[in-house]
């Protein structure tokens, strides 16, 4: 048996931190709160690193049993932890990026109220995320899944006095519920048909089934339902609406939860369930289509956004679309690879954006920024790295992962590839648009004005544009390095590393990869190079266009916008999706609830029943209370009458 790694410590450490801060943090100084939060989060990271170092000595997948949880007949769920290459990658990403963002948050949130609360939530999030990642079964994963939703809700609504923050939190929660609904039904189906939720047990029984062809069946349904869950958590097409609103939360939260880790849980889950998807081509296709469309759709919206964090939010959705696209063409390792690099550069982008916002005193509108290059050089350079990375410019991390995805997408269908390349162009365009608008040109903002428009960063001393403190810059620098170098591992090596996870269960697939495909690979190398050039060109084109429009001729975008007219407004208003949803779903539900459930059923049936019975009781009592006259003798009379009736009854019964 492999050594006991005490994997349970990894999630539990942040939980301890969360409990300490949550229960006692109010009395602690900020330093102590930060110390506790960083200490436990860092300890989890360190433990994860140690686990990674033990990897060579482990027989993967490695499971550690902790306790029995549910035992109902033959159905059994345990608390257990599951470690394989996939979860290890996630583990390192989550703890590493999470730790860096913790560090960053200390600087970012230093002057905020509820400091301890923030870190308590943050640690709580870490706990749930790690539970999700390390889960041994779907149910435990679901705990983490729901838990991160909870933490996300709490953190989005961190500034709960702000109405928009509170409703954004609610929106995130409710939209996620829809996804969870699908997830849950998928779980029920799994229980029903396989009698277990344990990954290994389920996958073992599934791998005995043959792939389902068109028309679908059980696995297709499960896959589609899992995809619904993933779409909710990872903000995919129908259910993406909560993520832009989630930007109401503090920027580190956006970086950690809504860019680097939580939103990728869907990708992780699909990758984890690859056994199911592999045998459900229809579901897989849906995943690919959804991912592709989301990538394109979100990228187009991102072009017209002016809020720096909203741009990044749509960018995130778009990049998540890429990941799903990858998963949808069964290139799970490419998806996970992109997930990792995306965690680096998107986390960096958010943190950089946070630094920018911090610098300009809480301003988030890019139209009021500009020329910040000289004021905040560190932020500028790290953001540059991140932007280049996301735009897919070699040799930055994003290039490798995105290129891999596009190449694999092409193998799936050229349509995916075409849209993917176009999206890459758009991505490059809007990211450089952001870059140019923020750091180049003249400063368009106004110190006094901006301090009034704040999401919390409104203390008077902030009117001067200033660089962020070191505690924020160091994580930026580290993430910048990772964004630069993160891709150098190379997709091939990464794929080989993750190979056991995705191919062990499909022995024939491995044989295919090693045998028949080996010849084709060599042949395709040239083609792949061409494709790489195309995608780089798309990125550079986006850079050039952004330079043209937002640096060289800043008045041009307006003219284009005017020219496009309604279409531009549609894009700027996010295609009115929120409004559409409001009309299609929210309004019917609210109206229906109001007129049928509230006025109709609740007031007219339930309340009416209760009220009528109460009124009836009262009226009866009203007449009956005159029996209680206070007159002793009338009471005695009633007693005597009752006794007489009783005696009469007894006599009658006796004489019968």
């Amino acid at each position, binding site marked *: 048996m492999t050594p006991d790694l005490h994997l349970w410590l990894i999630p539990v450490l942040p939980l301890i931190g969360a409990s300490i801060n949550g229960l006692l943090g109010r009395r602690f100084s900020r330093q102590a709160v930060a110390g506790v939060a960083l200490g436990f989060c860092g300890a989890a990271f360190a433990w994860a690193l140690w686990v990674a170092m033990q990897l060579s000595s482990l027989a993967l997948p490695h499971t550690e049993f902790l306790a029995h949880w549910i035992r109902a007949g033959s159905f059994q769920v345990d608390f257990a932890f599951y470690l394989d290459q996939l979860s290890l990658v996630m583990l390192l990403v989550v703890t590493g990026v999470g730790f860096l963002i913790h560090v960053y948050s200390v600087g970012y949130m230093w002057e905020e109220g509820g400091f301890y609360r923030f870190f308590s939530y943050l640690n709580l999030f870490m706990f749930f995320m790690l539970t999700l990642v390390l889960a041994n079964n779907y149910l435990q994963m679901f705990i983490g899944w729901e838990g991160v939703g909870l933490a996300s809700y709490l953190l989005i609504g961190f500034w709960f006095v702000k109405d928009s923050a509170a409703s954004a939190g609610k929106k995130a929660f409710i939209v996620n519920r829809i996804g969870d609904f699908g997830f849950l039904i998928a779980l029920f189906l799994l229980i029903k048909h396989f009698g277990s939720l344990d990954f290994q047990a389920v996958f073992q029984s599934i791998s005995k089934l043959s792939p389902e062809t068109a028309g679908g069946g059980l696995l297709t349904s499960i896959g589609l339902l899992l995809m619904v869950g993933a779409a909710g958590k990872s903000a995919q097409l129908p259910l993406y609406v909560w993520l832009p609103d989630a930007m109401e939360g503090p920027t580190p939260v956006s970086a950690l939860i809504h860019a680097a880790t939580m939103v990728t849980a869907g990708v992780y889950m699909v990758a984890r369930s690859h056994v199911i998807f592999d045998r459900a081509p229809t579901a897989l296709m849906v995943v690919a289509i959804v991912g592709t469309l989301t990538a394109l759709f979100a990228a187009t919206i991102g072009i017209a956004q002016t809020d720096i964090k909203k741009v990044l939010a749509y960018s995130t959705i778009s990049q998540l679309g890429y990941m799903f696209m990858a998963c949808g063409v069964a290139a799970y390792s490419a998806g996970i690879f992109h997930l990792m690099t995306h965690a680096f550069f998107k986390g960096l982008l958010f943190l950089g954006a946070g630094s920018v916002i911090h610098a300009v005193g809480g301003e988030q509108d890019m139209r009021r920024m500009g020329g910040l290059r000289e004021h905040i050089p560190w932020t500028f350079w790290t953001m540059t790295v991140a932007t280049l990375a996301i735009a897919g410019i070699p040799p930055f991390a994003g290039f490798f992962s995105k290129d891999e995805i596009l190449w694999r997408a092409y193998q799936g269908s050229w349509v995916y590839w075409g849209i993917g390349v176009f999206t890459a162009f758009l991505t490059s365009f809007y990211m450089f648009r952001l870059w140019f608008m923020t750091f180049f040109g003249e400063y368009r903002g106004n110190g006094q004005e901006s301090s009034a428009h704040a999401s919390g960063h409104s203390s008077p001393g902030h009117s001067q544009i200033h660089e962020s403190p070191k505690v924020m810059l160091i994580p930026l620098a580290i993430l910048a390095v990772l964004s630069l170098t993160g891709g150098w591992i190379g997709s091939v090596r990464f794929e080989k590393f993750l190979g056991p996870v995705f191919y062990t269960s499909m022995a024939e697939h491995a044989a295919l990869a090693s045998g028949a495909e080996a010849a084709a690979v060599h042949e395709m190398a040239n083609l792949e190079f061409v494709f790489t050039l195309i995608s780089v060109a798309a990125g550079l084109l986006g850079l050039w266009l952004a330079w043209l429009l937002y640096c060289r001729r800043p008045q041009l975008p307006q003219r284009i916008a005017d020219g496009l007219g309604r279409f531009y407004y549609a894009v700027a208003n996010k295609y009115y999706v929120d409004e559409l949803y409001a009309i299609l779903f929210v309004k019917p539900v609210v109206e229906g609830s109001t007129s049928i459930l509230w006025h109709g059923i609740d007031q007219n049936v339930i309340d009416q029943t209760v009220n009528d019975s109460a009124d009836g009781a009262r009226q009866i009592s009203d007449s009956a209370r005159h029996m209680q006259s*206070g*007159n*002793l*003798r009338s009471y*005695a009379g009633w007693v*005597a009458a009752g006794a007489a009736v009783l005696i009469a009854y007894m006599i009658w019964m006796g004489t019968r």
Partner: protein
Amino acid sequence: MVPLSYYLILGGILFACGVCGFLIRRNIITIFMSIELMLNGVNLTFVAFAAHWQRLSGQIFVFFVMVVAAAEAAVGLAIIISVYRTRETLNVDQVNLLKL
């Protein structure tokens, strides 16, 4: 020899008189005495049945009834005294605060 039913009828009459007294009298002490009358009516039936069934337990019950009556009289009369102290009346119709 006296038939059993005579005793029972006598007990019934006493009991009925007690009930009537309880219902028609207003003096709280008289009402109390009506209760005692009822108890005695029952006691008579107890004793009569004890003789009828040749079981002594009927007489034992009478003792218990007497004990209860004594306890009741002690407490009840104490209550009457304190009621009289506060309300200055023995008329139950005027001691009617315990309503609504």
